[in-house]
């Protein structure tokens, strides 16, 4: 049973210019992306900046117009068939934002921030609401006194916890995490990530985890999709991607993961050089004339790679 199914998702942004501000072209931020997420798993979307991973996440969340394609949640079509429609916002899907500094309204107390979804969806008395918020805050490791504080009184990690508390307030099933730790200090990253894994187990959550940090993805995700220029270049289990990368882009990404051991340094540098050469030599074998990836083709049950038609 798939929880989220994305079919041939396309998100184009119009480029306007010329006389009367006509549409003169499209920026294909997401160009035909398909994937499914099973309940309880963590699906990682990886790619460089501008590869369309955040746009994909926001389209699923309903923050971007979907140009084409279908998004099913629990077997139900989320975006109407009409072109350029937004996805229905529903309480089962929630989002955690990249920047904990701007995702919390600076003028609101934590109580109001965390209670916002409750006020929208649940009818609660002031007292119930307060108790619920207190419970949510203690779940993310914050004391009840933080309810009356403002966001700027917290550290980045604490703010991201507030964001998590707000996201789990409605007991969602799917949480979209848009680079949830990229804005955090490295020492805090691990702490927040582990805490997110705990929450996932406790509440049986499904994560769509968007990141560019392969180390973080390796730690968090069960399955991974690698994006480049709005398309998937490779998709598979964590082991498939990290132990047996097939696409040249994935190979280069995996080769770029830093290794702490200084004894391997020379070896690593050589390896990266070799992968880099392979990348520049075979670039045109793996991408078409426009620099886009080909269609995904299954090579095992779990592993799909965008290999060229001719093979």
């Amino acid at each position: 049973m798939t929880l989220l199914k994305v079919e041939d998702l396309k998100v184009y942004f119009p480029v306007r210019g010329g006389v009367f501000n006509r549409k003169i072209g499209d920026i294909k931020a997401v160009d035909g992306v398909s994937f499914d997420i099973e309940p309880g798993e963590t699906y990682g979307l990886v790619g460089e900046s501008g590869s369309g991973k955040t746009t994909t996440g926001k389209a699923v969340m309903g923050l971007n117009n979907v140009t084409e394609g279908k998004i099913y949640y629990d077997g139900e079509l989320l975006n109407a068939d009409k072109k350029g429609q937004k996805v229905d916002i529903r309480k089962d899907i929630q989002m955690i934002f990249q920047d904990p500094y701007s995702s919390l309204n600076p003028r609101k107390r934590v109580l109001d921030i965390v209670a916002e979804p409750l006020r929208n969806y649940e009818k609660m008395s002031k007292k119930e609401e307060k108790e619920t918020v207190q419970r949510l805050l203690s779940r993310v490791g914050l004391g009840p006194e933080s309810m009356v504080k403002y966001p700027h009184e917290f550290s980045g990690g604490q703010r991201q916890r507030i964001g998590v508390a707000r996201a789990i307030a409605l007991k969602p099933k799917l949480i979209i995490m848009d680079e949830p730790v990229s804005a955090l200090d490295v020492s805090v990253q691990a702490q927040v990530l582990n805490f997110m894994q705990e929450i996932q187990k406790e509440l049986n959550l499904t994560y769509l985890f968007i990141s560019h940090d392969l180390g973080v993805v390796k730690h968090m995700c069960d399955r991974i999709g690698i994006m480049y220029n709005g398309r998937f270049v490779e998709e598979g289990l964590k082991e498939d991607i990290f132990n047996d990368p097939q696409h040249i882009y994935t190979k280069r990404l995996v080769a770029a993961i830093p290794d702490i051991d200084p004894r391997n340094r020379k070896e690593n540098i050589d390896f990266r050089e070799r992968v880099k050469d392979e990348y520049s030599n075979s670039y045109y074998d793996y991408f078409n004339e426009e620099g886009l990836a080909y269609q995904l083709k299954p090579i095992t049950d779990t592993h799909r790679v965008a290999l060229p038609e001719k093979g």
Partner: protein
Amino acid sequence: MEEKQTQNEQEQVIQKTPSGIKIFWKEILKDKLALFSLIFFVLVTAIVFTVSLILDKEQVVKVDLFAIHQPPGGDFILGTDYGGRDVFGQLIIGTRNSLWIGFLVTALSGFIGIVVGVVSGYFGGHIDNVLMRILDFFMVLPSTMLIIVFVSIVPEYSTLSFSLIMTAFLWMGIARLIRSKALQEKELDYAQASRTLGSSHFSIIFKQVLPNITSLIVVTMTLNLAANIGIESGLSFLGFGFPENTPSLGTLLSYATNPVTLEERWWIWLPAAILILVLMLAVRNVGEALKRAADARQRRA
């Protein structure tokens, strides 16, 4: 008992965060000129409004041919005008009228400007386009001239209709300002987050975005208040404000168009002129202090 204790704790925590009003107070206390201005303005407003309650308006505007052009002192503190009317009484009622118009116009134009600006900035796209073109249309109109025209053709001429006419041509500046700020704010993640949490556009605009631009609104409205008092006085001076039986600071000032009055009967127009000047300066000073309080970078250390 326990609940009370936690409440006390909460109150303590609340006090730790300096509120906007507190920051403003600190700023005002540091800036002696602004403090003085604020006290002066509040004092003048209070005096004018209370005294005008006691003062008999009919008595003040009644023509008394036996007391024409009395110099200050004697029966009349500030003398009388060419109709034998008490200048001091006119000054009090006139200041009240001018301030009242100033407040009313600021509030009305602020309200329209804020709503138009925030809606336009938040939604963007076609809504923004349409609203901004309407705004541009109002901007290119020669507003002073049109206010004069409307003032002369309006059938029932009262404080309210005068304020409405002025408002119709004064809401654009604040609308533009608010729009540009709303454009910035809606791009921030918290506005999008609200959307994902199921808040309606209406509640995002007025509950999430608006509180973040209140400081700007307060500052602009204060500075607008000074400008509006000036505009009203200017129009009255030109003879397009209130009729003589409704004195305002501008009507008193307009007596100075008579060269004899200007040269020899200073008591009629000088107090009004000084009051206009000082009031506008005071409001401006307070506004500038507010502006600094709203922007952490400009605050005095």
